[in-house]
């Protein structure tokens, strides 16, 4: 008897990290199964046939996939340390901002990191516009969840770690302390919060990984744009 909770993750995935944080914030015991995404296990493919991705939460043998779906499942199944607010309107707002962070903020910042030239400039403009909305949303709050870390914080949490890693690699200031003081201090507070700080992947490995991704992107974009080969 007893709960069986497994989390399929990788060492670096920011999406899986959301689930690690959620489980640990709620004090849920779980077994981490680390996947090599270049060589996906049969179990991963069985549990997530549609997307073939991690994270996958397996609770008493039943899989749940997609980090937002998993977070809501965890919050509904284990009621301690709630991630989403109780009030339906506040919940709708949390879901709205989480979706905004994923669909707009993440995409624009990733593009600002991985693209070059004009495309990068455009991505930075978009990223800045998006961050302005978040800065406004942070007014009067320590975390997006208020006094405690919540659903939106976990969704955007990758920024508190990857933000400075991207900046180090490409020398681009993504979250300028002067332009976005509230967001900047949120990044520090979040990164150093208990549980959050204990789970960051090793920084040197992350730099190597993302530098390699950037190098590959540059190589493929210059070979596709060159015509005289």
């Amino acid at each position, binding site marked *: 008897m007893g709960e069986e909770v497994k989390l399929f993750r990788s060492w670096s995935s920011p999406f899986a990290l959301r689930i690690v944080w959620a489980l640990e914030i709620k004090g849920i015991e779980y077994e981490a199964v680390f996947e090599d995404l270049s060589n996906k296990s049969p179990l991963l493919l069985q549990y997530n046939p*549609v997307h073939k991705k991690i994270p996958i939460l397996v*609770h008493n043998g*039943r899989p*749940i*996939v*997609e980090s*937002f*779906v*998993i977070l*809501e*499942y965890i919050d*509904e*199944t284990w009621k301690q340390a709630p991630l989403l607010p109780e009030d*339906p*309107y506040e*919940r*709708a707002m949390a*879901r*709205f901002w989480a*979706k*905004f962070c994923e*669909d707009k903020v993440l*995409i624009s910042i990733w593009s600002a990191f991985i693209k070059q030239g004009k495309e990068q400039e455009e991505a930075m403009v978009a990223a800045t516009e998006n961050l302005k*909305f978040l800065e406004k949303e942070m007014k009067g709050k320590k975390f997006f969840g208020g006094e405690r870390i919540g659903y939106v914080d976990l969704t955007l949490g990758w920024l508190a770690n990857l933000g400075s890693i991207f900046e180090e690699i490409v020398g681009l200031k993504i979250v300028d302390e002067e332009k976005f003081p509230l967001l900047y201090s949120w990044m520090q507070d979040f990164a150093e919060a208990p549980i959050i700080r204990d789970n960051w992947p090793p920084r040197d490995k992350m730099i190597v990984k993302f530098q390699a991704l950037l190098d590959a992107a540059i190589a493929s974009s210059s070979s596709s744009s060159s015509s005289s080969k």
Partner: protein
Amino acid sequence: MADEIILLDLWASMLGMRVRVALAEKGLKYEYREQDLRNKSPLLLEMNPVHKKIPVLIHNGKPICESLIIVQYIDEVWYNKSPLLPSDPYQRAQARFWADYTDKLNAKSLYELGRQLWLTKGEEQETAKKGFMECLKLLEGELGDKPYFGGENFGFLDVALVTFSCWFFAYESFGNFSVEAECPKLVAWSKRCMEKESVSSSLEDPLKIHGFVIMMRKELGAE
């Protein structure tokens, strides 16, 4: 005190129709305000400053945006009538997963693929058609032999998907294919849903949608 509910919407939008179905399922009275997206109203810009899109639900003066977020909100506030999400967390996760699947932005949502079906030609259109049908086939697999995606009862995922069905005729005309030939169970399901008052009163006439697409193609220079 009575609830004041306003819906900012566009008649042809299958995303806006999701909200109309949800409101009808709950038996709620609301004020529908048609929006002109080429000339956005001050109210729309005030209520959805981030995306400037419809649908927007305004409940007692407070806005909620994003169709599936609105549907969940409606379900949570008016929880004692026609629940749309099941009560079991695992079933809820399944419904959310499949609804999310239709809306997945980076992997081309059903909405995106459908749009490319009527907007593009040649190879681009063929790719969109292929992606669109793959999506529908997967959904049909998920439906299986159940009367509704929600099982015995019409639920969240049914709301999320049924509104696309009034766009099928337009997609089929411009994409030159038949949804019924490839996904007969899905078409049967959509007809079953149309027997419900909340659905038939919220979805638009497929011929009118077809006319709307003709107009949009001209406007966007696809002709």
